[in-house]
């Protein structure tokens, strides 16, 4: 019996010794499909080159699922070290109080990496002058178009429409010539509306888009919004615009474009790689262009969409340091280059851009170029910084419902003012729940 106890005791000790040798880090993200494998490979690389650290990576479902899971895990005291959180969840993540402001913990000799972020990205993720999280996957919307359909319709395949009116004119030709059954599609998603607001230099919330102080008023009933809705409704009524009928249906929109039911699609730059492969498989030539903007408005730029990586509170120092080491490695120059090539997400570091330029990447892969130029040409101001609103997910649904009501024939001015009131109410309730 005694001997058994000794053996058990010894092996327990040994177990501890081994555990002490490798620091275990967990990393939760929201990328399914091919991207899961991509991330897994990068993590394996890291574990191989950092013998003291073992990163375990888990796919947790959608952005929302991942955030939910992280909050619940934190509540039970076993939060993952690193969590991927979508951009509109930034205010929520800050308010939840389960994360540390990452910039305070970056070691001095790696600070340079934070200064390396391209301006629009730094612009979005610096909240109160500080990085609270490490930017990772960033994208914005661009126009994809089918060059073959453009040729059939007698349009210049090298000159995609750049403004709202140009889109409408191109659509007229495409539909009249029967080059395609529908002209243009994009997911019925508030994200595009937010982008068009930013392109006009307008704000979506007060207190400088919620950046100077907590937002207390959402601007849905605005001239900028009216312009977008008038145009969109016009396209819809003439049968130029199509969507599957389901809100936020990214795959459905891609399906419409890839199956050549629509000549153009506006969607995220993160689909460049997918679109290139799909257009090749479906036998048409793909073109990309800037996001069309309202006429007579100076192009102000887009908001950086995507997600960033957050570090949770309450871990032993050694684990926190290991997690940070991984984070900075995972988003370093080389890895950002790989990530961009594999997905179409932006290379968010200046040095990564230099590497890609040196490789003549953008010349050899012109489809990636529009995405990137559009981001670099974005002006840095409050509008392109994007809004920080706590109940952003709910406000997105309010905007999407509003669009559908307008399609069904509701007066635009009325729909806007009603949605505005609803959004303000949601924001008021959220703010009240956070203050208590």
């Amino acid at each position: 019996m005694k001997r058994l106890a000794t053996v058990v005791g010894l092996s327990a000790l040994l177990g501890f010794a081994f555990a002490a040798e490798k620091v275990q880090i967990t990393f939760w993200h929201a990328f399914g499909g091919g991207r899961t494998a991509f991330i897994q490979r990068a993590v394996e690389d890291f574990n191989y080159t950092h013998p003291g650290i073992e990163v375990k990576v888990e796919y947790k479902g959608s952005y929302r699922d991942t955030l939910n899971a992280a909050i619940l895990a934190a509540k039970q005291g076993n939060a993952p070290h690193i969590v991927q959180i979508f951009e509109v969840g930034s205010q929520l993540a800050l308010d939840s109080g389960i994360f540390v402001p990452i910039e305070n913990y970056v070691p001095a000799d790696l600070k340079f990496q934070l200064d390396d972020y391209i301006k629009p990205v730094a612009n979005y993720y610096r909240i109160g002058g500080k990085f609270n999280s490490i930017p990772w996957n960033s994208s914005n919307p661009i126009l994809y178009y089918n060059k073959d359909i453009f040729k059939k319709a007698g349009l210049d395949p090298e000159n995609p429409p750049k403004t709202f009116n140009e889109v409408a004119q191109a659509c007229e030709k495409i539909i009249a010539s029967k080059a395609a059954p529908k002209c243009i599609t994009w997911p019925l998603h508030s994200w595009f509306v937010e982008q068009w607001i930013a392109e006009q230099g307008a704000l979506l919330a007060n207190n400088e888009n919620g950046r100077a102080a907590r937002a207390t008023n959402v601007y849905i009933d605005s001239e900028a919004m009216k312009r977008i809705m008038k145009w969109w409704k016009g396209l819809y009524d003439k049968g130029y615009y199509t969507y599957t009928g389901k809100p936020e249906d990214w795959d459905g929109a891609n399906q419409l474009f890839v199956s050549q039911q629509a000549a153009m699609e506006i969607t995220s730059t993160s689909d460049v790689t997918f679109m290139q492969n799909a257009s090749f498989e479906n036998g048409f030539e793909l073109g990309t262009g800037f996001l069309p903007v309202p006429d007579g408005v100076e192009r102000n730029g887009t908001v950086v969409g995507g997600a960033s990586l957050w570090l949770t509170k309450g871990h032993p120092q050694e684990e926190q340091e290991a997690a940070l080491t991984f984070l900075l490695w995972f988003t370093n120059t080389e890895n950002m280059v790989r990530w961009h090539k594999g997905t179409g997400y932006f290379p968010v570091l200046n040095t990564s851009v230099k590497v890609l330029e040196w490789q003549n990447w953008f010349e050899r892969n012109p489809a990636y170029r529009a995405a990137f130029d559009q981001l670099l040409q974005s002006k840095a101001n409050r509008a392109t910084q994007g809004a920080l609103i706590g109940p952003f997910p709910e406000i997105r649904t309010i905007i999407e419902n509003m669009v559908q009501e307008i399609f069904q024939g509701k007066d635009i001015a009325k729909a806007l003012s009603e949605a505005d009131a609803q959004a303000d109410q949601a924001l008021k309730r959220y703010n009240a729940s956070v203050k208590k």
Partner: protein
Amino acid sequence: MDTHAAYKSRWLPWVLLLPSFVILILFLYYPTIETFVLSLYQVAFLGLSKSFVGIENYKILFTDPEYLQIFKNTVVFAFFVVIFSMAVGLALSVLANQRVSGWRIYRLLLIWPYALSPAVAGVIFLFMFNPQSGIVNYLLTITLGIAPDWLTNPTLAMGLLVFVAVWKNVGYNVVFYIAGLQNLPGEVLEAALIDGATPWQRFWRVTFPLLSPMTFFLLIINTIYAFFEAFPFVDLLTKGGPSNATNILIFNIYRDGFEYYKTGMAAAQSVILFIAVVFLTILQFRVGEGRVHYGG
């Protein structure tokens, strides 16, 4: 009368019941009570912080026109789902109960949809009813020259959801109705036949009343199905759109609770749904009891 006849110890029955109690309390009673409690709080971030607000959440809900709309949608949805899935289920069972050649295959095929996961069914229907590239509109275009926007029109979207929910649950009703039909006392039907009753009379005067216990049971099960299990179809097909036209209680609870982090509001809605279903079930028992014929 000695109620402890079977057990020597007074405690033994309780001990034997303990495992069931533990499971019921942990997974049923405790969450239910917790939901009632949470519905009186304003909760942020899935419970990281909360403050007592009394019946504020309920007040907000009942004065919100959007919520009343959702309530109305749910009633319409549940009514049609229950009526159609039971009527179609009964009609198909009567047909499948006949000994025609290949009856085994018919029965198997009728039950098939029920075995499919709702998520898979939702995705398949989404593909089929895609307005531009779906098979349904493709066939409608070449035959009738029309291509309805299934999910963009509020009435069509609700109709489609009802159709999918019915299609999915008919198999379940068929299983029970066929079982019911096969257990009918043959002599009663035979007597009716000899008395010269037409097939129509035989069905409505004999078969249908004899099936009433089954119908009653299925009515309750189908009601619960319509209220609680339609979530995947809404989530996958319409997300409650166009502009809340197909948003139903169970979907709104999920959305408020897990997408908008309004746990308190979601809890209040769960309580309302709970009460509504309990009320309906009691009503069905009250009304049903007099009309159900248990034979014997």
